[in-house]
Structure formats: structure tokens, C-alpha cells
């Protein structure tokens, strides 16, 4: 480890209604891999966005290479040598791999962009990284994993001094992760500073030198990786919040009836011959890597995407589900992983969102019975403890956790027996997360059946009665909670590739 290259001090940032960063400190040295950890919503990504100029900080200082700096956009940051590999893929699908890697700093021959040189350089870059990607391929034709590798290659090609990896491994196979680590070690040798954001405790131990932990937008502390244990880090991350006790055994009675049976479900490449059963009162966890086909399975089951085959039985009766309309009629509700895009209508009120799936029930003749609508909305605001001044509040003004509660309320109003929760706690702060867990357990105990898709291993292990593991569109395993361990799940989630 060399001298300090970057210091962030007292960084403060607020969004309307959210104190996203509360006087956070951070320090990075040359030749170090520094992990930044924290639960979802702890403020890691926000801190990095402040660093790279995407957000403007409210107060605090950033010292980089001995000088105080303030970047106004990513371009400034890049020019100074700070690049970020984003969590969400930021690729221009209509351009080729090489064009994407060099976007914003194309090689030029006179007026002309020198595409040939860009392709050569990309090849060189990929060779160095031992990745096999055709630089001339169109970006949108690549798999998510490969796109991620391109994103990393792009960052590295920037002659950077500081590289930020924001959850880079989420979509990668184990082999690809190995490659990534090799690359990171190589970069460390070249005396670069690396910030590594990840949830995977194992990786942190393997690759990083120091760990900084954040919680609820605040700085908690920094540890030297070799000198601490996993538990130390987890304690710092979780802090005061006492989660629901992890399940040690299934809470579902052995004789609970099967409410949903899916047989040989097929839908494109991402859903291949998936079969499973769901019992009354059960929380069925779906685990796997990003891009394993869990969301696609849920969407196909819900009728949101077209299926190519498979049978669905509800309470033993075969049903046809060709559209979400059919699914909802059959008592299935779906909470999407992408709340803003698929879950809520942000510019509308809580009331309007709550009754969206049930509107025909709240009609008196031709007109909407606004009184009854408001009544039921207020009932669920109270029941779910949604924090809002009134039922007429626009959903856009709510925090992530409360927005999620509005979506849940939508399905509870509908009285759905089968609920699909796709990443129910993504982008939700820690306190709200626990409330959602409690709520899920309560719903299960009331006899609702829940399919929970989650990428957080701790969440899967904490909540599920039974776990289904998927990999590359196929179901690769089914594990009871008693037998489940992180290793067992990871093994199945990556089984095919090894």
C-alpha cells in the first residue's frame, strides 16, 4: 500500500425526505483494494456518485492527489483518473462493443473516428484481461455477464488511478469472478487505488485489504480485512437493527395443501422446463445469480411475458394464464424487482395505486366510489404502517420502503392468495427492510403463499421455508431450509459452469 490518494471528509448529501449521506468519511491508498460495505440503502452508491460528480455534495471535502477537488460530471472525474463500473449496466445497446468501450474518447483520424484502431485496442484490452468477446459484436446481443466484463474493460482502459467497482460480481459466474480477481490483483500491483463494493462476504475476505462499513447513510468504521472476522463486519453493518430471527426449520405444516403447481414452464432462453410446487402458508425462496432466470420465471408465471409451454395448476385445477389479467383473476399478485418501472404509478396518489388492481370493486354504477376507496387505502396505510401525511400523497414523494408498502397494499386489497415478491427489499433502508420481513412472515402465517426472489443470500436464508435455486434458466436445485447453507446454494447456482 502506498500513500493516500483520495480522502473524502464529512460528506453530506440530502434528497427531499431522505438524508442520504450523513457526514461520511472515506480514505483510499494507492495499491489498495478497499471494500465499501453496508446493507442496501446504506449510502454506498450515493457516496460513489458524489465522488464521480453525478451528484453534487451538500457539504464536505474531497481531496484527490493532495488537492481539493470537486467534479461536476463523470467526464471531469474520468479526466482526473477516477472511473466507475456501475451497478446498473450503462451501455449503448445499439453500438458495438468497441464503440462502447471508447465512447466519449474515440480515436480520430482527421474528422473520422478510427474504428479499426478502436477494435484493435479493444482486442488488446480483452487479451490482457483474458476475456473472449468480439469487439465488433453489437452490445445488445451480449449476455449480461459479458456486458459487465465490457464495462470493466472500459473502466480499465481509462488509464485510471482510482477504479470503483459497484457490485461487479452480481452477474458473473465463478469462473468470471476468478478472472475479475486476477485483473484486480494485477491492477493493485500497478499501484492503482480500487474501491470494491460488494455484498459477498467471502469475496471481501479474499480480495480486499481494508473494509469501510456504512449504515443508514452514516460512516460506521474502517477495519483491516486480515485482522477482522466476518462477524465483526456483519455486526457493524447491521448495528442496532434486530432482524427477524432466521428460520431454522420450515414453518409450513407437513399437510399444508399445494396451492400452486407449475409444470415444465418454458419461456425463451431464460426459462427452461421449470417445475415447482408452492404450499399454503409457505415462503418459497428463489435463489440464483443475476440473470439466472428467476424474474423471467415469475413474469412468465404471471403472464407478463409470453410462455412457450408449461402447465399451471392452482388448488389442483389447471388454469390458463396468458396475461397479468388472467393471473390476477386467479389470485396471483406480483411485486416487481423494479418498483419504479413495473410496480407503482409514481405520479399518482397512494389511493389510486392501492386500488389499481381492484378498481371494479370500488365502483358504484359508472362512477368510482372515492369514499370507499379512501377508506380501504387508509386501512392499509395503518395496517402496513406506511409513513405518509395522507392517502392523497403522490407516491413519488414516498421513500422506497413506503412505496413498496403501497405495492403490497395493492395486492392485499385484492386479497391475493399467492404473492410473488421479486427482490422485495431492493433499495429499501434497513429499518423498513425488517418491517417487510415481519409483514411477509405475518402474511404467511395468515395462510398466504409467497414466492420470494432474492439475490441476497442472508435474506433467502432468513426468510425461506424452502429454497429453489436457478441457474441459466434452469432449476438446478431444491433445498429445504434445514439443509440450506450459503455454500450449498452457491454450489447449485453455479453448478453448470464449473
Amino acid at each position, binding site marked *: 500500500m502506498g500513500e493516500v490518494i483520495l480522502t473524502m471528509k464529512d460528506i453530506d448529501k440530502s434528497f427531499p425526505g431522505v438524508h442520504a449521506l450523513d457526514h461520511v468519511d472515506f480514505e483510499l491508498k494507492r495499491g489498495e483494494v478497499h471494500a465499501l460495505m453496508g446493507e442496501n440503502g446504506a449510502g454506498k452508491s450515493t457516496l460513489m456518485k458524489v465522488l464521480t460528480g*453525478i451528484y453534487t455534495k451538500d457539504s464536505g471535502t474531497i481531496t484527490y492527489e493532495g488537492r481539493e477537488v470537486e467534479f461536476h*460530471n*463523470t*467526464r471531469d*472525474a*474520468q*479526466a482526473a483518473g477516477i472511473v466507475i463500473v*456501475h451497478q446498473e449496466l*450503462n*451501455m*449503448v*445497446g*445499439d*453500438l*458495438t462493443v468497441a*464503440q462502447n468501450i471508447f*465512447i*466519449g*474518447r*474515440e480515436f*480520430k483520424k482527421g*474528422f*473520422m*473516428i478510427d*474504428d479499426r484502431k478502436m477494435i484493435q485496442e479493444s482486442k488488446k484490452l480483452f487479451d490482457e484481461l483474458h476475456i473472449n468477446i*468480439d469487439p*465488433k*459484436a*453489437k452490445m445488445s*446481443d451480449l449476455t449480461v455477464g459479458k456486458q459487465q466484463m465490457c464495462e470493466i474493460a472500459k473502466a480499465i482502459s481509462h488509464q485510471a488511478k482510482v477504479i470503483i467497482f459497484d457490485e461487479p460480481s452480481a452477474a458473473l459466474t465463478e469462473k468470471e469472478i476468478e478472472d475479475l480477481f486476477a485483473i484486480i490483483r494485477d491492477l493493485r500491483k500497478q499501484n492503482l487505488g480500487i474501491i470494491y463494493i460488494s455484498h459477498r462476504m467471502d469475496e471481501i475476505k479474499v480480495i480486499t485489504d481494508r473494509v469501510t462499513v456504512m449504515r443508514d447513510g452514516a460512516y460506521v468504521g474502517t477495519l483491516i480485512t486480515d485482522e477482522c472476522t466476518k462477524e465483526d463486519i456483519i455486526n457493524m453493518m447491521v448495528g442496532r437493527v434486530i432482524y427477524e430471527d432466521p428460520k431454522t426449520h420450515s414453518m409450513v405444516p407437513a399437510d399444508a395443501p399445494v396451492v400452486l403447481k407449475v409444470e415444465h414452464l418454458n419461456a425463451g432462453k431464460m426459462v427452461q422446463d421449470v417445475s415447482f410446487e408452492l404450499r399454503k402458508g409457505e415462503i418459497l425462496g428463489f435463489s440464483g445469480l443475476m440473470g439466472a432466470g428467476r424474474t423471467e420465471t415469475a413474469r412468465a408465471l404471471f403472464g407478463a411475458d409470453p410462455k412457450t409451454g408449461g402447465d399451471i395448476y392452482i388448488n389442483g385445477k389447471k388454469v390458463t394464464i396468458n396475461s397479468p389479467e388472467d393471473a390476477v383473476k386467479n389470485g396471483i399478485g406480483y411485486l416487481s424487482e423494479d418498483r419504479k418501472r413495473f410496480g407503482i404509478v409514481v405520479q399518482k396518489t397512494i389511493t389510486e395505486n392501492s386500488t389499481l388492481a381492484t378498481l371494479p370493486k370500488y365502483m358504484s354504477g359508472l362512477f368510482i366510489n372515492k369514499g370507499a376507496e379512501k377508506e380501504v387505502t387508509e386501512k392499509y396505510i395503518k395496517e402496513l404502517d406506511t409513513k405518509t401525511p395522507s392517502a392523497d400523497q403522490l407516491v413519488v414523494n414516498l421513500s422506497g420502503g413506503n412505496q413498496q408498502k403501497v405495492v403490497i397494499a395493492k395486492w392485499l386489497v385484492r386479497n391475493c392468495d399467492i404473492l410473488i415478491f421479486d427482490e422485495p427489499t431492493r433499495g429499501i433502508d434497513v429499518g423498513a427492510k425488517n418491517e417487510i420481513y415481519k409483514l411477509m412472515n405475518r402474511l404467511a402465517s395468515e395462510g398466504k403463499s409467497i414466492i420470494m426472489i432474492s439475490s441476497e443470500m442472508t435474506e433467502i436464508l432468513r426468510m425461506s421455508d424452502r429454497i429453489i435455486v436457478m441457474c441459466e434458466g434452469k432449476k438446478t436445485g431444491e433445498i429445504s431450509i434445514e439443509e440450506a447453507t450459503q455454500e450449498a446454494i452457491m454450489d447449485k447456482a453455479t453448478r453448470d459452469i464449473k
Partner: protein
Amino acid sequence: MTKKKSIFTQEVIVGIVLVALYFIFRTISSDFGKYTTFLSMMDISYYYALMAIGVAFPLITGGVDLSIGTGMICYALAGGCLIRFYNVPTGLAMLVSVLFGLGIGLANGVLISVMGLPPFLATLCTCMITRGLGSVVTGSFAIPWPTAKQDNGWFHSIFKITLADKTKLPLGLVWIILLMLIMQFVLAHTRFGRYTIAIGSNKEAAILSGINVKFYHIMVYAVSGLFAGLASIAYAAVIKTVQPGTGAGMELDAIGGAIVGGVSASGGYGTIYGTVIGAYVILFLKQGLPYIGFNANMQQIITGFVLIGAVTIDIIKRKVIK
């Protein structure tokens, strides 16, 4: 760009349609095949093709420019006014027309990129404003540009030259092809073109890649305005007398041409040669159907259905690939 892609891209299909249309019209009407008919068609094609080349850029960014039709008339009126009332040399007046177009284009760009107005609305407003301006500068009067035989009418020969043996050559077609190649080159091989595609495909990613998206977004509309300015000269050269209050609806033919020529209606993809071919398909329908005995009004109905057909085929094609 990838090898597995079928060679039957929209551009190729539209190209085949264009050739097929030509031969169908030719077979049915012997007059259609005459060289003079071809010349007349070319005359009228120039300003549509120029507008289409320009508007392809906003379309590829996922936007649109509705101000080019009325704009073109407005610029032609302004230039014509200078020649007629202020004895400005033709060359200078032409330059003013083009710069006027560029200016309105820049204004569109600022409204959309800096002030954040939706492109449809911003250009709808400039469409109304240019239409009004055109009438205001001329006091609502029609403005004749100099005819080819007048001293200052040399600009007609930019688009058509007469050889010693009285043969006429559609020189304008050369310019259209040249500009098409240049702009295709710009789109495919310069930063400006690349960022145009990037803005249309994933604007957020473009911003995060450190591109000055605001600047390039303005430039996209400036190009559209510039080409509307160029079109105004082609219009003046062919139609000669420019009437204020006209021009509305011409932009739709140009945009329709670009869409038929494979420019994605949602942005992110398009080629300039496809755009030009598409514009000529629309023009062939407009100009060719009267030759094969169609009621002039049937042509509008057919054009409407061709437009829907072209886009529907594209939608179905994409669904099949998925």
C-alpha cells in the same frame, strides 16, 4: 455489423421496393419512363430529400423536428425578400436562408436540450412560429425568386444544368447523393454521429460516459435546421414563387421517408442512405401514382397505408427475432 445479421435489412427491402415501384409505374405507364418525367421528379425530390437527411438526426436521437416544413418556406421567403427588395446578391441571400435555418435549428436544440421541452412540443411551437415569421417578414406576400433567365438566377444551375445540346442533367441528384454519403459518413464515423446514436439508444449511459450530451443534442437539431435551410434553396430553385403559409405537412413526408427507410421510430438506429431511399419511395408514390391513372387523392390514402405497413413490418420482424 455482426455477421449473423440477415442482408435483408429495412434499407435493402426499401431499396428493392423503390426499384420495383419504378418498374411497375414504367410498365403501366409508358410516359413515366420518359427522361423528362424523371427530370421533373428529381426537381421536386431535392427539397424533400434534403429535409429527410436533416430530420433523420433528431429521429435517431428519439426526437423529432416538426419545424422543417414551415421553416423551409420561412427561410426561402426571407432569402427571396432580400433579393427582391434589398437587391442583395443571390449568393448572400442563399447564405442568409441557410443560416436562418441553422439559427432556428439551434433554437430548437436549446429548447429541447437545455430547457428540457419534449421535442415534439418544442418543434411544434417553432413550426407555428416559423410559419408566422415567414408571413411577417414578407407582409404575407408571395415572394418570387429570380428565374433561371434573369441575371441573378444562376443558382438554378446548382440543381440542373443544360448542356450545349440542350440536354438537361439533374445535377441536384449528385448533390443529394454526395450529401447523403457525407452525412452517412458523419453518422457512422464521427463523434457527432456516434453520440447521436448513443443519445437515441441510451441517453443516461451517454451522460455517464462523460459525453457532453447537451451540446451534441443541440447540434443534432442544428443539423436538422441547416438541412431545412439548404432545402429552402432547392425549393426556391424549383418552385420559384414561394408562398407564405404553406409548408405545413411537408415535414411529415420527409419524416415518413426516414421512417420508411428504416430509421427507428423510437430512436437509436437509422441510416442516411435508408432515409434518402425512403424519401424517394414516398416521392414516387406522390409523383408516380397520377401516372398510372390513380385519382390524385387515392395517393394520399395509399401513402398512409404504406407508412403503417412499413412500421408494422418492422415491429413484426423485431418480435420474430426475439
